[in-house]
Each structure stands twice: as structure tokens, then as C-alpha cells.
């Protein structure tokens, strides 16, 4: 069965050209970048060239790019690194309620160690309130960490305004841009971003490699102690193939950014409008315009997300849900609850994230399958029965 993949926010397929660039570093170019002989030096050079490529995308300097083992490691490094290096200045951090666990749980860890964290609310479309942000700032605030775009509902935050506020108050500004990179044009200087996390596998690069941009002026601690790699900021023999792959993937993503965005938005808008037209009792989650080009998150009322996913899987369709059953916790997605969804509507959410290889035909097929599955699941839903009977409303 041919797989129809609509879960590009979870991960993407490694681009063939990217793999081609990686392969020498998985075969003949096997030296350790720290070695001084030519087999080592060529690997070192590959890493430095990769750093240049990544820096260029963000209008940054190569010395401001650090490679890591994942987006999560980048988030941990950024937040813990700034927190512990600037503890003398203050112990207060501001973030939001809808961050990825790599940010949220890092903040919670810091709370256990004497830091204070403000978790900003978001409105029903997932946007932070800039006034609330300003009011949260104290003279102990050392870091604002707010994600660029949300991984579940796709909402894009007013990053430029947040950057301005951070700069005015001389507070470091970190953004988890794992979902934004490859989809949105990002100039760290124009946007006043001091630290930025990214993960290669979200933009057709390999899994297990990330990067962190850190402005030259930012003081931050080393997270993984040991050798002098990454200008003494991240120990461990470098994943050279992964780093080369990351840089090629990001370069390709930004070469075709506009073209790809146009394509993704077309698929997304087609999907949303068709679903809203064809299936009753649905709700679009996230902001209608300020959202990632490939993201469509819709709740199908009266049904539960996991069973929806399993039925799609039977048809070879890959998508994702904010249902508790797929989140590994007791509650449905903290993001969906933060935008004010009641639990049962959150349980019925379906996140569809399009990628460059998806076609209009794919989307139409998806819609057709969904109509049928949603109908069937509603037919077997006691909530829907009660709703039809008039004894239940949501």
C-alpha cells in the first residue's frame, strides 16, 4: 500500500540530495574532526562549511551556530545554559503555556532548582498577549523563551514584537523555532532573536541532529561537558554526516521557500475549506491566517482522535492527534486545553501537516477517506447519539 504522509510536523522524509551529501561522511570521510591529519581536517572543514550555510540562512555569523543532537538538546542548552550563566543577574524566566515539552519541562526542572517561571496564557487562537508579556517582566527576568510557531496548532507568534520588548528590557530572547525553520524566513537581527533552536528532521534533514543559534553577546554555559568540540560549548565527537545533512537541508529549504510555501498553503487551504464544507461539527484550531503554511488542526466533535488515526492508518494515511491516548499522558494536548478547548473536543483533534511531496490529489483522497471514517465513528459514538437526542451539547 502506498503511504500517504500528512504528518510533516512529526518528521519528514530525508531528501535524497541531502542523503547524497551525507554519504561520503558515512563512508570514506570517516576521520575525527579533531584529528590534525588531512582525514580529520577535511571533516573539520565540512563542519565549518555547514556552519557557514546555516548562519547565512539566519543572517548570522558562523561563530554563532552550534550543532547539537536534537531540537530538544538545543532547547535544553539554550534555556539551562542562559539560566545558569546569568543566575547572578536574576532567576526569572518567561515562557508560554503552549511550548513544546522540550521547553516546558526544562523550565519545570529549573523551577525545582530555584528559578521562577511565568507561563503566559494564549488566546483562543494560540497567540500570546504582548501586554501580559510586558507585565510579567521584573528586574529579575533574565530570559524570555517563546516558540516561533506551535507544533500542534501551527499558530505563529508575533516574534518581532517580542524581540523588541526583550531588547528594550535587555532580556535575552530565545525562540524554539523547530517548526518554523524551513517554513518561515528568519533574520535573527531584524527579529532581535538572541537564541534559536532548530532540528534537522523537520525540514527533510536527518534525525538526531539539531542546531542552536546564539548571539555573540550572550553568556551561556556548556550543557554537555567534556571535549573542546563546538568551540568548547558542546562536547562529543561530531555527527559529521548529520551536520552536513542539516546544512544541505536548510539550504535547500530556503532556496525554494516561496515556492514551497505557496504549494503548502494551497493544500492546507483546500483541506480546511473542504472539511468545513463537507463535515459538520468541526472546529479549526489555531489562528486562521497566522499559521504555518502546512498546518491544519481540526477537531471532529463526538469522536476520539486515536481511533480516527487508526482508521486512517488502515488506509495508509499518516496524521496526528492531540488526544490523550497519543500524547502519553492523562490529559489531551496541553496546547488545545490552553486555547480553551473542552476535553472531549481536544480528544477529537486531528493534526494534518502537509509536505512538499504532497499533491492536490492526495488531499482530495484524504478528505474523502475522512468523511467516511468520521461518519462511521460518529455512528458508533454515544456522545453523538446523545447530541442527536438533544441530551448532550458541546
Amino acid at each position, binding site marked *: 500500500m502506498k503511504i500517504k504522509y500528512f504528518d510533516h510536523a512529526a518528521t519528514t522524509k530525508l531528501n535524497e540530495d541531502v542523503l547524497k551529501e551525507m554519504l561520503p561522511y558515512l563512508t570514506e570521510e570517516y576521520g575525527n574532526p579533531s584529528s590534525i591529519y588531512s582525514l580529520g581536517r577535511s571533516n573539520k572543514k565540512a563542519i565549518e562549511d555547514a556552519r557557514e550555510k546555516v548562519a547565512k540562512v539566519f543572517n548570522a555569523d558562523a561563530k554563532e551556530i552550534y550543532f547539537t543532537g536534537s531540537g530538544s538538546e538545543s532547547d535544553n542548552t539554550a534555556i539551562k545554559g542562559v539560566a545558569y550563566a546569568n543566575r547572578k543577574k536574576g532567576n526569572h524566566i518567561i515562557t508560554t503555556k503552549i511550548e513544546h515539552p522540550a521547553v516546558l519541562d526544562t523550565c519545570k526542572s529549573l523551577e525545582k532548582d530555584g528559578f521562577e517561571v511565568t507561563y503566559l496564557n494564549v488566546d483562543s487562537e494560540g497567540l500570546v498577549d504582548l501586554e501580559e508579556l510586558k507585565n510579567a517582566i521584573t528586574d529579575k527576568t533574565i530570559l524570555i523563551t517563546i516558540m516561533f510557531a506551535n507544533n500542534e496548532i501551527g499558530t505563529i507568534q508575533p516574534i518581532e514584537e517580542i524581540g523588541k520588548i526583550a531588547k528594550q528590557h535587555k532580556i535575552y530572547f530565545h525562540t524554539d523555532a523547530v517548526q518554523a525553520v524551513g517554513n518561515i524566513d528568519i533574520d535573527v537581527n531584524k527579529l532581535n532573536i538572541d537564541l534559536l533552536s532548530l532540528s534537522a528532521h523537520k525540514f527533510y534533514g536527518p534525525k538526531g541532529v539539531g542546531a542552536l543559534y546564539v548571539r555573540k553577546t550572550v553568556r551561556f554555559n556548556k550543557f554537555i561537558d567534556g571535549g573542546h568540540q563546538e568551540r568548547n560549548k558542546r562536547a562529543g565527537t561530531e555527527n559529521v554526516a548529520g551536520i552536513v545533512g542539516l546544512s544541505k537541508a536548510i539550504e535547500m529549504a530556503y532556496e525554494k521557500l516561496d515556492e514551497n510555501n505557496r504549494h503548502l498553503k494551497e493544500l492546507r487551504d483546500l483541506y480546511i475549506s473542504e472539511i468545513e464544507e463537507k463535515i459538520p461539527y468541526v472546529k479549526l484550531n489555531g489562528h486562521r491566517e497566522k499559521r504555518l503554511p502546512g498546518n491544519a488542526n481540526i477537531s471532529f466533535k463526538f469522536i476520539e482522535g486515536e481511533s480516527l488515526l487508526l482508521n486512517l492508518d488502515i488506509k495508509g494515511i499518516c496524521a496526528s492527534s492531540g488526544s490523550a491516548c497519543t500524547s502519553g499522558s492523562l490529559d489531551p494536548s496541553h496546547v488545545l486545553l490552553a486555547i480553551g478547548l473542552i476535553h472531549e473536543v481536544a480528544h477529537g483533534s486531528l493534526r494534518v501537516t502537509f509536505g512538499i511531496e504532497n499533491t492536490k490529489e492526495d488531499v482530495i483522497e484524504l478528505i474523502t477517506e475522512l468523511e467516511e471514517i468520521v461518519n462511521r465513528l460518529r455512528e458508533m*459514538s454515544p456522545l453523538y*447519539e446523545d447530541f442527536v437526542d438533544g441530551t448532550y451539547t458541546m
Partner: protein
Amino acid sequence: MYSKKVMDHYEHPRNVGQIVGADGVGKVGNPVCGDIMKIYLKIKDNVIVDVKFKTFGCGAAIATSSISTELVKGKTIEEALDITNKRVVDELDGLPPAKMHCSVLAEEAIKAAIADYYTKKGMSKEDIDKVCSLKNTVCVHSHDIGQE
């Protein structure tokens, strides 16, 4: 993740639907938790002659409901009351630790339907509780315990 048997049941759930004028209806679970099961029983001469279900929930919830209806169909009430959540799990060739609560829910749904039947028959609440040993299912998944 799921056994072949579970997958077969959520792909082709048996006895989906409702019974108009059922002799007993049980509804357990909570929309907040993401699981609701409703079981309809048709009972004749102490025997469950027909059974239907509706479920709002994950794949395991659907599969446990479906297998439970198969297990009770044609059984006496006493036999049906003997069906434990463990039996449900075994019949499905196992469930992931995080999904064990669904089997509990299925057991409870059957018992709740039988309790409803007894209630309609005029049995006292205490007597029903004695026979059916109904627990109150709450939002407790067993993920984290099971995974560690």
C-alpha cells in the same frame, strides 16, 4: 503496539449500534477522559439474547467493547457477570500497559447494563451493588506505571 486481534476488532467492530427498548443499558466512562462506553442488552429468560454497543474512545476502547459484546452474547446474566477485565485482555491477545484501563471500562459497562436491568426489575441498590460489584471508573491511565 496492538495485537492482530485488537486491530481486527477496531477495524471491524462487532455489534455496533443501539437496541431500541433495551432491557438494560450501561454507560460508563467520561468524555473528559476520552472514553465512554454504552452497552445495550436484550435479555430473555435470564439469557442475553442480543447486545449492542456504542463507544467514544481510542482503538483499544472500541476493541474491548466489541469483544465484550461477543463474550456476553448468548450467556446467562451470571456468566456475563463473571467476565473480568483480564478475560477481555486475554481474548484480545493482550493490550499495551497504557490501555489496560479500557478493559476495566468494558467490564464495568457490562455490569452497569446488567445493573440497569436489575434496577428496572425493581432490585434494591444494595443488592445490585452486591451482585455487580460496580466500581467507579475514573480518569486513571496506567501508562506511566506500565512504562517504567
